[in-house]
């Protein structure tokens, strides 16, 4: 949905993605208008599968020009693709595809907690977060809480992004809403449905953009606009704590 919102706002020239839509409804109307009609501007689309976009980031994260795969052979995504090319297996096996490295200018990721140096603890749904953070030229970590470094060092296996990769740390509770953050926020499904309805027309999208982006100066204003009841309903207050792990030497 975030892709769709940025595309519909006219801020996107090119999309590199495996899927652009709305988890609630399938189609992203902003994406469709841009792709089908060039409204509000034409976009260039680089289609991927989840694995090939993951391998593109992973290659950059590993400092490699490409990684090989055989996912996508026989299909149209890889045909004439600017970043995916057929290669011979140097060890004599069947044909492969090379997926070229993708190095984002900036990755913005949301985690549960980080220290002031950007050492970040993240748990739950990982997806491509770690690959993106490693691949990007600059990584901005948004966290629910900035914590003392002792908290991070108490559980170093949970540090998925070391601080020296991080350009900036932002403490912004609720910054991922309406998406969930394990242990902090539940998913708010209604905004996904509402956005799907309202973004069906350009006018509906403009109204959404005004209400939820342009008229709100910052995230606290966003949470206030959601309303206390919604915030209270979505905030996780119960505890499902992991067992302790003994790191004693």
């Amino acid at each position, binding site marked *: 949905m975030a892709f769709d919102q940025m595309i519909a706002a006219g801020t996107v020239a090119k999309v590199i993605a495996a899927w652009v839509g709305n*988890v609630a409804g399938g189609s992203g109307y902003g994406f469709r208008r841009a792709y089908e009609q060039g409204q509000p501007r034409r976009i260039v689309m680089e289609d991927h*599968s989840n694995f090939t976009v*993951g391998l593109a980031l992973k290659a950059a994260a590993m400092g490699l020009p490409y990684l090989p795969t055989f*996912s996508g052979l026989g299909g149209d995504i890889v045909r004439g693709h600017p970043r995916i090319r057929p290669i011979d297996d140097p060890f004599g096996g069947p044909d492969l595809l090379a997926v070229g490295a993708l190095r984002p200018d900036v990755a913005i990721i949301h985690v549960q907690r980080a220290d002031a140096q950007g050492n970040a603890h993240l748990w739950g749904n990982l*997806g491509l977060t770690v690959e993106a953070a490693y691949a990007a030229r600059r990584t901005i970590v948004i966290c629910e809480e900035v914590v003392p470094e002792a908290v991070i060092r108490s559980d170093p296996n949970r540090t998925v992004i070391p601080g020296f990769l991080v350009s900036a740390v932002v403490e912004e509770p609720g910054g991922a809403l309406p998406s969930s953050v394990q242990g902090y926020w539940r998913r708010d499904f209604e905004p996904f449905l509402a956005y799907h309805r309202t973004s069906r027309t350009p006018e509906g999208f403009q109204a959404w953009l005004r209400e939820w982006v342009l008229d709100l100066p910052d995230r606290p204003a966003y949470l206030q606009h959601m309303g206390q009841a919604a915030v209270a309903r979505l905030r996780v207050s119960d505890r499902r704590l992991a067992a302790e792990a003994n790191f004693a030497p």
Partner: protein
Amino acid sequence: MTSRYTRRELMVVAAAREIRDREVVFVGMRLPLLGFGLAKATHAPDAVGLFENGVIRDRPAETFIYTMGDPPNIVGAVACLGLVDVMSLLQQGRVDVGFIGGAEVDPLGNLNTTRTSSSGALTRLPGSGGAGDIASLAGRTVLIMEHEPRRFRERVDYITSPGHFPGRRRGGPATLITTLGVFDLSAGRVRVASLHPGVTPEQVREATGFPITIDDHPPATATPSADELAYIRHADPEGFWTGDSMKSG
């Protein structure tokens, strides 16, 4: 006891029957997610489920989820890896069966979820997500589709998820479950395995945009048992995925 059931509940049961005990399953959302849970609760207690965001589960989430990243899908998981990790397991050949859906299908089991001009105008669809990878890399795939003439095409406009093609390394489409019946695709053509109760061969021919051979008296898809319905209604209490209000439900 004879219970009333929706077309989608029947499809969930058909999906569950595609899973054998102890198999590793690439799950996905919607009907396959419910089918996986149902298979676990009945004939396949030791099946393991992989989700493309990195989650590995051997029992369904305790509460309803809209997306695989929702917090209840993390709680009680066996592992939370990254996308590249589970896709790597898929590429390695560790996944027995994967479920995918599409907007269009052809007789070879090629699926299109990228773009189509079947209605005359260009329509952009959300894209592959993980479907292209599952189609390429799983031991076999089960396709789930709405059965409509515009979706069942002699040739799809774009092959997002490859079906049967010469030189395929492994797997390919095995079964197609639609709103009208269950079809065997394993031989590289569409053969009726069963039609849902009340569906006539004529209905299927009319809803299929390519020639299809059907016996005069094909077998009927097995109807859900009371236990199976009880499970589905426990897992989808509001009928969000399986209710009558869903299209063609």
